[in-house]
């Protein structure tokens, strides 16, 4: 049922096109490209999660470095950013009540990572922080700066934990594979509750632990089908939707009585 058909193809075919004359003058810099053949993916109502495959190419790769496996690629599919409230339950007179809360601006709703190797083996934590790469390094801006750093840290950690537990933040180690010296394939997970909206696919290239280049592409995730039409009507024509819901109930009640009286 996962009507997911995203053909994401190599955009750049200039794999080996970087000809030798240029090589002699300037030092070769590797380049990374990802291209999506479609700018949107439609998922149907019964969607229960899927793997999204993104193809990409590595240009001007040094064959020696590639053979030694010192190129690493991290691909991220980041969902739209929205404000989020994190609430903590505490016990008051024996009852669990939402007491403390912290609002964060612009938290990516989903964040799926695919890597060639475990994150800690690719590069050092500082580089991740600078690139703000990885679920642990996304900067989450609290709406209220006045709160103590400890509180903010606690709620940020809880936010990440909840997102990971619901599958919205995921990490697929080994999800990026080199198909040849220049071609790679990344598999990122789409959670069953993947949010609709504009997602951003980004690929980061590392050479021997050093960040070289980044490439990005946009992908629109839409829901389609009957259920989605209902959702849209409920939001766009909410009054008519309400009238419909009431009429449907009355009709069902009336029909039920007809059936009942025949008995």
């Amino acid at each position: 049922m996962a009507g997911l058909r995203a053909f994401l193809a190599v955009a750049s075919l200039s794999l080996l096109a970087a000809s030798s004359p240029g090589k002699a003058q300037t030092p070769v810099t590797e380049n990374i490209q990802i291209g999506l053949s479609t700018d949107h993916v439609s998922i149907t109502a019964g969607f229960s999660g899927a793997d999204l495959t993104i193809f990409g190419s590595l240009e001007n790769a040094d064959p020696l470095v590639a053979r030694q496996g010192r190129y690493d690629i991290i691909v991220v599919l980041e969902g739209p950013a929205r404000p989020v409230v994190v609430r903590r339950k505490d016990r008051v007179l024996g009852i669990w009540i939402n007491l403390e809360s912290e609002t964060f601006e612009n938290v990516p709703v989903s964040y799926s990572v695919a890597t060639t190797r475990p994150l800690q083996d690719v590069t050092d934590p500082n580089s991740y922080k600078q690139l703000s790469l990885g679920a642990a390094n996304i900067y989450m801006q609290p709406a209220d700066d006045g709160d103590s750093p400890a509180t903010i840290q606690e709620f940020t950690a809880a936010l990440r934990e909840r997102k990971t537990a619901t599958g919205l933040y995921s990490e697929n180690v080994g999800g990026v594979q080199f198909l040849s010296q220049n071609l790679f394939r990344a598999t990122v997970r789409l959670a069953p509750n993947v949010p609709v909206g504009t997602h951003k696919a980004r690929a980061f290239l590392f050479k021997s632990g050093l960040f070289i280049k980044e490439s990005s592409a946009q992908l629109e995730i839409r829901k389609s089908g009957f259920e989605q039409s209902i959702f849209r009507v409920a939001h766009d024509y909410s009054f008519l939707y309400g009238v419909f819901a009431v009429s449907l109930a009355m009709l069902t009640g009336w029909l039920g009585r007809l059936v009942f009286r025949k008995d």
Partner: protein
Amino acid sequence: MGIYLPIAEISVNIFVLLAMGAAVGFLSGMFGVGGGFLITPLLIFYNIPPAIAVATGANQVIASSFSGALSHVKRGTLDFKLGGVLLAGGIVGSTGGIFVFGFLRRLGQLDLFISLLYVVLLGTVGGLMLVESVNALRATRSGAAPVLKKSGQHNWIHRLPLKMRFRASKLFVSVIPVLGLGAGIGFLSSIMGVGGGFIMVPALIYLLKVPTNVVIGTSLFQIIFTSAYTTLVHATTNQTVDVMLAFLLMAGGVAGAQYGAKAGQRLRGEQLRALLALLVLAVAIRLAIDLFVTPPNLYSLSGVDPT
């Protein structure tokens, strides 16, 4: 078989919902109640977000009360004038309730408030009913004649001003308690997703002294419109009515109600009331336990409403 609920945005088992509707329909046919007070907690136990469970519960109540009210219209046991006055109060109460609902939702306290209201109201009503029905059962067993209530007995309610005559109910009473009762039920309807029959019926009988034969029809009449209004307002302001969910529950409910009504005829009044009381208390206790047990996740996430 799984089905995706468009508004609740989760996949659920279609047969579980049909069975849930049928079971509640059976009970509502048996006891003559709308069943909203059972549907909403059941949906919450089934992991439907409380806000959606409440709004959809109100939608489902329309179906059962509409089919019930139709038969009372036929039998002439429906006081339209009394129902109309109750309804006027109901609209006011319901509007207030929706406002409070949205406010609590923004505060993050909606779930707690719904659970607390359920525990308190179901606990009280269930407890009172149980005591009353057990006493009645004991009385019939010992062979004593049931104490008849004297008609024409007046209480403080009958001394209030602004009196109005309700012919079908043979009643001459102030509109203030009628409007107030309607408003209270409307408030509960919008916050709890119930029709409110389980409060309305005893209130009409014991407080306003409405003859028992017109009570159920009149209560159902007012419930149709209060819950229709509640559904409409929830749909427009909170977008929390899930028609797919409501329809599955109604379909099961309509089928279950037939068998329930038949089963109900075989039981005596006190027995029925005692069983209903036990059921109501069981729901209240189950909800109360959830309030005290340490939740598996102390932290919860929610979006920020634009308002």
